[in-house]
């Protein structure tokens, strides 16, 4: 990746303005919602044993926004599925409010990358699903659902079916469906990965708005560096084979965030650091390494005067 020549060297991504440093100090004061200690995961497959995660340690504090980033196949989805209780872990422990998690539960909401709305239910009924499962009456569930649809701006589409909505709208419903249960933590596995750039940008802003306004802690997986920096308080950088914590970065970009900050020095310094971690300059990208070496031998097949550049 080429970038414009720097007029002055970037500051270190570890440099924090006083306001940012104070904010992190405040976050550390809050109680941890989620604690991960010595977490490891092995898959037993026909090809043998795969070590997907090794000795993960981190904590997420109340109302913190943590992003997890790493090359594809490094175990991000495995991690979040373990946290959600959808996958058992092999070693270590996961504590939610100090208690070990056992199986999936309403205290951990999840938004999946693919569309996970129930296609046979309308938008409103999708959001009502959680409250109904916890024994709320239909009226109460409906009231909660409408309140949350209002929060995500989809009141008009309450009676539409998911297939009638655009991708961004479906993910907004998925967020509302998870939040109506008032989970302690919202787990999101590349929720905007399938969206086009414009919609994704809008959804990021929207998610920040929601997070600001309600008492929820977010663990957000992405492979998009800009997205991670824009959203996160801290970024957990994983490396692959096996998945291990490479660094837990405190993002020095001040809040409130706005798209204008993409060009700020803090933003660029953080991005430079992430790029160095995820695409080490000397070593090739993990996936690229698996590709066979291809030496293109290009022969000019156009008229010599017919230049495109």
């Amino acid at each position, binding site marked *: 990746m080429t970038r414009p020549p720097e007029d002055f060297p970037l500051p270190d991504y570890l440099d924090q303005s006083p306001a940012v440093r104070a904010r992190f100090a405040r976050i550390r004061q809050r109680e941890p919602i989620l604690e991960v200690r010595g977490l490891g995961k092995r898959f037993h497959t026909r090809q043998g044993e795969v070590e997907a995660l090794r000795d993960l340690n981190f904590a997420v504090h109340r109302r913190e926004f943590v992003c997890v980033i790493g090359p594809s196949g490094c175990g991000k989805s495995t991690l979040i599925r373990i946290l*959600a*209780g*959808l996958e058992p872990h092999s070693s270590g422990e996961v504590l939610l409010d100090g208690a070990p998690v056992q*199986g*999936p*539960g*309403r205290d*951990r*909401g*999840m938004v*999946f990358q*693919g569309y*996970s*709305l*129930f*296609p*046979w*239910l309308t938008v409103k009924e999708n959001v009502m*699903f*959680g409250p109904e*499962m*916890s024994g709320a009456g239909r009226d109460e569930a409906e009231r909660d659902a409408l309140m949350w649809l209002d929060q995500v*701006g989809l009141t*008009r*589409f309450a009676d*539409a*079916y*998911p*297939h*009638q*909505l*655009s*991708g*961004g*709208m*479906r993910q907004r419903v998925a967020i509302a*469906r*998870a939040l109506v*249960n008032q989970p302690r933590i919202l787990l999101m596995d590349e929720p905007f990965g399938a969206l086009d750039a414009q919609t994704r940008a*809008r959804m990021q802003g929207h998610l920040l708005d929601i997070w600001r306004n309600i008492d929820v802690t977010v663990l957000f997986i992405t492979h998009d560096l800009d997205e991670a920096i824009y959203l996160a308080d801290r970024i957990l950088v994983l490396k692959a084979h096996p998945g291990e914590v490479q660094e837990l970065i405190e993002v020095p970009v001040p809040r409130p965030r706005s798209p204008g900050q993409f060009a700020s020095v803090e933003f660029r310094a953080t991005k430079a650091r992430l790029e160095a971690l995820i695409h080490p300059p000397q070593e090739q990208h993990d996936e690229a390494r698996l590709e066979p070496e291809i030496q293109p031998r290009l022969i000019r097949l156009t008229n010599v005067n017919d230049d495109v550049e």
Partner: protein
Amino acid sequence: MPMPSIDAGLPLKPALQQQTRHWFAVRTVLDAQQRLLLGVGSFALPILVWCLVSYLPFVWHPKMEIRDAGGVDYFQVGMLVDHAQFLEERDNMVAQHLALPRGVPANPIYLPAPHEVALAFVRAFTTPPEQKDQPWLHEALWHSIQVIFWGFLASSLIGIPLGILSGTYAAVGRLNEPFIEFFRYLPAPAFGALAVAVLGIYDGPKIAIIFIGTFFQQVLIVANTTRKLDATLIEAALTLGTRGVRLLTRVVVPGILPDLYRDQRILLGWAWTYLIVAELIGTSTGITFFITQQARYQHFDRVYAAIFMIGVVGFGTDLLLARLGRRLFPWDRSTDQD
């Protein structure tokens, strides 16, 4: 924030729709008029072939229908003889200086012309059967429909729940599917004699054959459909606090319902194919009795009319169910092109 319109998420429908129609563009979506035209054509073509064979004597007509026996002692008016035989006898007559037989080219008795079948079809509903104890065509058909209905219902009542459980819980599936895989290779009609011994000679064994023919396929197909349900939906439900039986009743069953409905339509079609064999078991009844009786008297026009009637009822039911399906499952996208 500007709100995208409600159909922003709809797949772009006719991607290759242009001003001029392309009949042979690869993988295009046909427009409504094209679909109708081609659909009618798919019926018109075989009927056209039938007409050509029936009404143009030079196309096939391997027989001669005798109009005048002439000097041939065994010829009778209306009799069908082979072309070669007719020519041979005529040569004989020429040699013996007797009157020549006359005849017109005709098709074999088993291939009546379209208008004859059409007439037989109408008469089947308008003129009473020749023998007193014989059923009308619609009575025979109604009896057949009842046999299918009970066989299919009994199979579905057990097969669908078992299939869903097998597709949901690996242990249940493993406990019955290997045996069912084996059993479905045993031809259902092979159980005919056994069914008569156990259930008597009337409708019992017939229903049993329909049941055996449907049930084993049904369990496997429903189990497979259940397994194809997107696992993300189940996981989403789990993270929303769904547990136990409600996972089955609130997620799995509604999730597979449109596909289950489609499976049932296909299985019902198969049940019809077992009908004829089933009705031959014990005392022959229903549409099969009608057909075999008419064939015995060489009323092949009525045989075709009855076979055609089975097609109308089967295909008609399926069309109706397809319509109904679109009503029942408004969220199901795969029925759009049905």
